[in-house]
Structure formats: structure tokens, C-alpha cells
């Protein structure tokens, strides 16, 4: 039974209680800062701030570790590719056969990895602490059409569900003797074809059902202006957080420009 399908974990801390628009503002500000300086240290610092917020929000450490563990192979690959192939000119540090490894290559690779790591943590923080309904309400309050908001929310929600579905289909096919533990990459890729077909069939089926279920709940009823049960209101904590975020953003831009 894959029990953990969504990224969001509910906790009763002030980080969770913040207005979704404030959290979105944090995502924007943190992302801007991570990209403002071409400096891996700044990006790393943004990551550390995110980790601090994870701690304040009381998101279980297991989840963060698992997320990072999933991210590591990707980051290593990006780092290697940048260092090996996108080094650009500069003092050659080491020569691996025909591939020169330059100091700027190392810097570039490290910067890129640090930024990706920061981005990953920023968005993971956002998704962990904002439930999907609040997220949509936030977007809609910022004038996004409701259908877009709902589509986005459902897409976010269904990514982990489809990942779970993929796992189930893969197991079902293995149980029928399909050997997915092959050594060679191409063989393995070919072996996955039945898994993908079964998965697409299942996904289409549940997509169709979901559409029906939404219509049965009067989504898009004619001549009706959709209402919102609990409209968002900014509270004092939200205003304080927004002011702080704006201050940090202005300060960062000034520092960078001056």
C-alpha cells in the first residue's frame, strides 16, 4: 500500500498558517536571491534558510532526506556534465583524455548545482507546507482563472498518484515474468514498454473518471458565478511576513546593483 502519495504534510505551525500568497512571495524572493549573485555560497545560503524553515515548520526530517536522496543523482549528473563539457576557457586544472577540466568549469558546475539544490528546496518547502486547495485559492486570489488553478492543483496532486500507479503496474508486469532487472540499458528500456502501455491505459481510464466526477459535482454549471467558501484574508502575521520579504528583496537588489 503506497500510503504517502502527496508531498504536503499537515502540521500545526505558524509556517503552515501563513497565507498561500505569502508563501508564493517567499518562493519568488528566494528564487530571485539565489540567481542574483553568480555565487554558489549565496545559493547555498538560500538552501540553508529553506532548511531552517523546514525545521520551524516541523516537516519530518525523513521526508527531506528522502527528497534530497532522490535529487542527488540528478545533481551529480549535472555537475559532471558541466565540469566535463561546459567548462569554457581558462586555466586547465586536469586533463581527462581529450577533456580539459578548467577552474571555471568547476565553478560553473558548483554554481549550477547549488542553484538547482536551492530551487529544489524552495519548491519542496512550498509544496510541503501549502495544501493544494490553499494553493489554488492563492492563485485565484491573484487573478488566475479558477479552471487553470484547479487544473494545476489536480496535476500536482496526480503526479505522485501516477508515480504510485507506475509502481503498481511495474510490479504487476514483473509478477507475470517480465524481467525488468536486466543489465543492459536498452534491453531494460524495451522491457518497460508493456509497463508504459498498461500505465497509459490506466491513466486514461482514471482521467476519464475524474472528468466525470468533476462534472457530477457541478463544475462549470451554466449561469453560475462560482463562490469561494473561505476566501483568503491577510492577517497580521501575513502582513509582517510580506513586509519582511519585500524588505529583503529590495535590500538584495540594492546590494547587487550598488
Amino acid at each position, binding site marked *: *500500500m*503506497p*500510503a*504517502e*502519495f*502527496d508531498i*504536503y504534510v*499537515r502540521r500545526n505551525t505558524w509556517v503552515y498558517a501563513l497565507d498561500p500568497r505569502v508563501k508564493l512571495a517567499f518562493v519568488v524572493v528566494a528564487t530571485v536571491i539565489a540567481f542574483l549573485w553568480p555565487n554558489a555560497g549565496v545559493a547555498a545560503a538560500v538552501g540553508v534558510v529553506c532548511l531552517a524553515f523546514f525545521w520551524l515548520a516541523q516537516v519530518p526530517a*525523513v*521526508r527531506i532526506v*528522502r527528497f534530497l536522496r532522490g535529487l542527488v543523482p540528478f545533481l551529480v549528473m549535472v555537475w559532471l556534465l558541466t565540469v566535463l563539457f561546459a567548462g569554457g576557457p581558462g586555466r586547465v586544472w586536469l586533463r581527462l583524455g581529450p577533456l580539459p577540466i578548467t577552474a571555471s568549469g568547476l565553478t560553473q558546475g558548483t554554481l549550477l548545482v547549488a542553484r538547482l539544490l536551492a530551487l529544489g528546496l524552495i519548491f519542496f518547502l512550498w509544496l510541503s507546507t501549502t*495544501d*493544494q*486547495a490553499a494553493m489554488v485559492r492563492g492563485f485565484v486570489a491573484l487573478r488566475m482563472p479558477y479552471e487553470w488553478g484547479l487544473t494545476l492543483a*489536480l496535476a500536482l*496532486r496526480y503526479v505522485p498518484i501516477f508515480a504510485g*500507479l507506475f509502481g*503498481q*503496474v511495474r*510490479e*504487476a*508486469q*514483473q*509478477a*507475470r*515474468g*517480465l*524481467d*525488468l*532487472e536486466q543489465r543492459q540499458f536498452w534491453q531494460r528500456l524495451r522491457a518497460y514498454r*508493456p*509497463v508504459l*502501455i*498498461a500505465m497509459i*491505459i*490506466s491513466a486514461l*481510464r*482514471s482521467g476519464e*473518471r*475524474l*472528468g*466525470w*466526477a*468533476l*462534472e*457530477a*459535482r*457541478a*463544475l*462549470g*454549471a*451554466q449561469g*453560475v*458565478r*462560482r*463562490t*469561494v*467558501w*473561505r*476566501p483568503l484574508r491577510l492577517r497580521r502575521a501575513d502582513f509582517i511576513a510580506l513586509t519582511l520579504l519585500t524588505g529583503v528583496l529590495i535590500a538584495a537588489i540594492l546590494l547587487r546593483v550598488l
Partner: protein
Amino acid sequence: MISPTQPAIRIDDLHYAYPSYLREGQPVKVLRGVNLTVAAGEFVALLGRVASGKSTLCMALNGLVPHATGGVFRGQVWVAGQDTRRHPISDLARTVGLVFQDPETQLTQMRVEDEIAFGPENLGLPADEMEARVAWALRAVGLEAYRDRSPLRLSGGEKQRVAIAAMLAMRPRVLVLDEPTANLDPAGKASVLGVLANLARERRIAILVATQELDRVARHADRVLVLHEGRIGMDAPPADVFAQVARLQEWGIGLPQAVELGHLLTQRTGRPYRFDDMGQAFHILCSEVRTAPQPSIPAALPAPAPVPAVPAAPQIMLEEVAFSYPDGIEALCGVNLAVRPGEFVVLLGPNGSGKTTLAKHLNGLLKPCRGRVLIDGRDTRSERVAELAHQVGYVFQNPDHQIFSATVADEIAFGPRIQNLPPDTVAQRVAAGLARFRLSPFTDLPPALLGSGQRRQVALAAVLATQPQALVLDEPTGGLDARSRQELMEAVVAFNHEQRTVILITHDMGIVTEYASRTVVLVSGRIVFDGAPQDLFERTDILQQARLAVPPVVRLARRLQPCGLPRGVLTCAEFAAAWQARLRSYGAITAAPRGEEARNDAG
């Protein structure tokens, strides 16, 4: 608003055919002249075989048929006076709520109360009205305390109740449910049907449930409809419908146990018995023996024919197996189990007790965190799943997860081909599978387009074609009608009779009483019971802990033990035989016993 005289549902001569799946094919006729009227406050159960058109009829009531499905639609459907063809689905949603079998695809929000407010929001209701409706709907399904929970983390029964509440919040006049309990454990089934009966009685909502739950329907429903060959073949109160035993059996619908018991007793003793429920059965049978002298009756049924001598070596061994999912949830803990070839083991336990996790250890899909699993002496940790699959076949709960081929024949051939068998052997096995499940007419059709019962048959046929030594089945019969279930189980029993092992997960206690040689009960990842089904039903503590329902006939037999009925009665057939012996022992009847059950007359 509908007037009191206006029916909640009215269907006049409805014909419907789905558009053909294949370009050159004919439309697929499903409904062939349905007529139906349902009044406000009525609780109506819709029975019928799989693929008889029950879902289609449900979907016609909220306009999904034909608005979303296309096809050829003739006749008229009114829901609370609205013609479904004139109104779009989202408009009809104010009057009629539709709940589907799978809760996963109808829950869209992250919190229970948001889920319930979603419909009212779409209707554009003001906030205070919504607040009132959310509170009301949650109370109606008994989930007041669940407001803030995530729907995804509830049990199956709770999820379905959230889905029902989400429909109720739109204040429908009509609530239609398509197999809402097929995937639920007994406690979940009881809670959902109880809620529905209340809604009809107290809130005057017309309720139509498509279901296969005969025993519960007989107890709760005001009226029973049987859909047969595209028409409403029977339409009467439960007692009258279930009185037509021969017709129901011919149509493959099955009978509630009380009715089946009455039927079998009549056959055996030549006296007329008719029970509408087990309470009535108890009174009738009790009064029958009160007037008779107490005979000496064996305290228990003679032991069933000894299981043919089995080789001592277990085929499947679990030693101190523990398993935790990566998120730290401990799913199995200290599990010891030895299964010998030829056993028929039924795995029981509430939803989420670790049954599927345990089953996935049997072919190496999951490897134990501690302890070990041996299949024919080989440790699963050092074997590939694909290798173990030759030994242990596994049929998944959802057939769609394993079906992918372009034709039914290819689907069945997949396993044998992967084992590199010669083409004529493959062809032979495909032919055998097609014949066994009567799938020959569909040989060249894509399996994904077949009905749900047939997709299950294809999935089972595909696994049997690999000729494994043991077969693991995860809830193979949920939502199947009596005959489809029997056909499926016959194939499983035939496999079992070849001295091959069956391990089956189910919530269907009928499978336990009819087929199991051994039951294993899991609660919170531990085995709390491992023994014969007769012994399980003696253990009220275990039954309660695992939230298992005792089949009505077993309960009746236990209540009648003081009247001289032997212990260990599990099925209606056993009951009827024992009762016949009971009557004969004091000369109440003289009819000769039927030959094949003579063993019960030995005492």
C-alpha cells in the same frame, strides 16, 4: 422543487447503445427498453450481472449517458422532473448525485471539508449556506470529526462516505451509487449501506444503489430491481424478488443466504421452508425442534475428508518476516508462515492490515527487511522477480495494472512466450485459457475494452497460462456477480486440485466458508490467527479485532447449537444436511438423503 406526486426518477422505454470501439463495428447495445419509477425517500437496490448495464443506467441518471459517452440514446429519463437530455451534466448535478465505485478518482481536494464544499462552491452558494451544508453533510454520514483530515489517508469505507457527503452537500433529490462498496472490508460495507438507509428514511432522498451485496440489500432496501438483458426483469420488495429462486439462479444473480438456506432445506426435506431473513429462520427452526424430543446428535460435523497426504516440505516459508516501507510505516512484523503444496489459504484482515504487503513477499516483489522468505527452499532476496514468477503466479486486484496487449490472445500468450516456450505449446495454452473462461469470442479484441468481469478473467487466464506451482490472488471477486464469481473460483479450485497452492486475499467471507482449507488473519502486520475456518468462527475476539463479519448462516447455526445442530457448520448446504439429519433422527421425515452428501448422515 418537485411536487410530492412527481416521481424522483422516471425512465420511459430507455434504449442505449455505446458507440463502437472499432471503426467498422456496430454500436454496442446495453439497455433495451428500461422502464422505471422511483419515489422520493425510496431506497432501491439495482442487481444484475457484471456488464448487464447497471453502470450505464446509473450514468444515464445524471446525464453522463449520453452527454459524455455519446452513443445511441432513445427514450426518456426524468430526474425530479428534469429531462436529462435537455440539461447539461453540471446542471443536473443540483438534483442528482452520482457516487462511483473507486473513491480515488472522485476525491479532488486535500481536506475533507474542502472536498465537501467543492460542489456547493461550483453552485455559487453564499458562504454561510455552505458552512451549514458542510456541517449537515458530515453529520449525515457520521464524519463530523474528520473535517480537517486528508481524504487520501482515510480507509476505503471512510473515503466512500466522504464521496457521499460531497454529493449530499449539493442537496440532491436523488442519490445514485455505482457499486460503492465493492472494494471495502465488511465494516466499511456495513457503514456505507447503513448511512444510505438512513438518508432515504430520514431525509427523503431517493436512493438507487447498484450492488452485488445480496445479504445487506435484503436487509436494507425497500425495493429490488434486477437488470437482465437490458431490461428491468424484476421490480418488487426484496422478499418477493428473492422468492423467485429459480429465475435468479438462471440469471446468475445469486441469493441472500437466508433465502438460499430455505431453498436448500426445502429440497432436502421435502417440507416447504421460506425465510426472508435469518431472524425468521431462527424462529421457524426453533419452533420446529421445540416440539420434538431431544435426540443424541454428534457434537460436531464429522471431520472433513482428510487432506491427501502432503509432502512434509513446505513450499512457501516465511520466517520472522518484518517489513517497513521507506517512509517508516511498519507493515509486517514477526510473520511466520509455512504453506504446503495443495493448501488453499485465505488471508483475511481489515483494509490496511498488511495482507497485500505479505502477498507481495511471496514472489519477491517485496523483500523482507528482517527475516527471510523461502520459495521451494530458495531465498527470495537472491532471486529475480521474473524467475520467481515461474513458481508463483500473482493476480493483482486491479486487472488494468497487468493488461496491455493488443488482443486477448496476445495477453494470455505473454507469460508463456517470456518463458521461451515453443510456439505450439504457447498456442496450446492460449487455446486452453480462452476455452476455460469462454473468452473465445473476444480472442482478437483488445482486452482493455472488455467489461470489468472479463478483464479479470483475462488477467487470471494470463497468469494460469504460465502454469505456476502456486497462485496468489488479491481480492479477485470484488464487484463480481454470483455467477462470474463462481466461474472465477471454479478455475482457482481446479488449479488447487492439481496439488497446487492457492493463497487468496479477500473480504468475502463466502470464499472462506466455501473454499478455504486454512485461514490466516492479519491485524496491524501481525498474524493473529492461523487455522481452520471452523475454528476461526469460534474466536469472537479475533473476529472483532479483525472486524470480520460472520456469514449469516454460520451465525444461525451457532444460535441453533442448543437445539442440537452440530458445531462447525459453514455453508447453507452443510446446514441443510445437518438439519435433515436432525429431523430424521427423530423420525420427523423419512425422505432418503441425497447421495452425494451422505457423509453427513453417517452419524
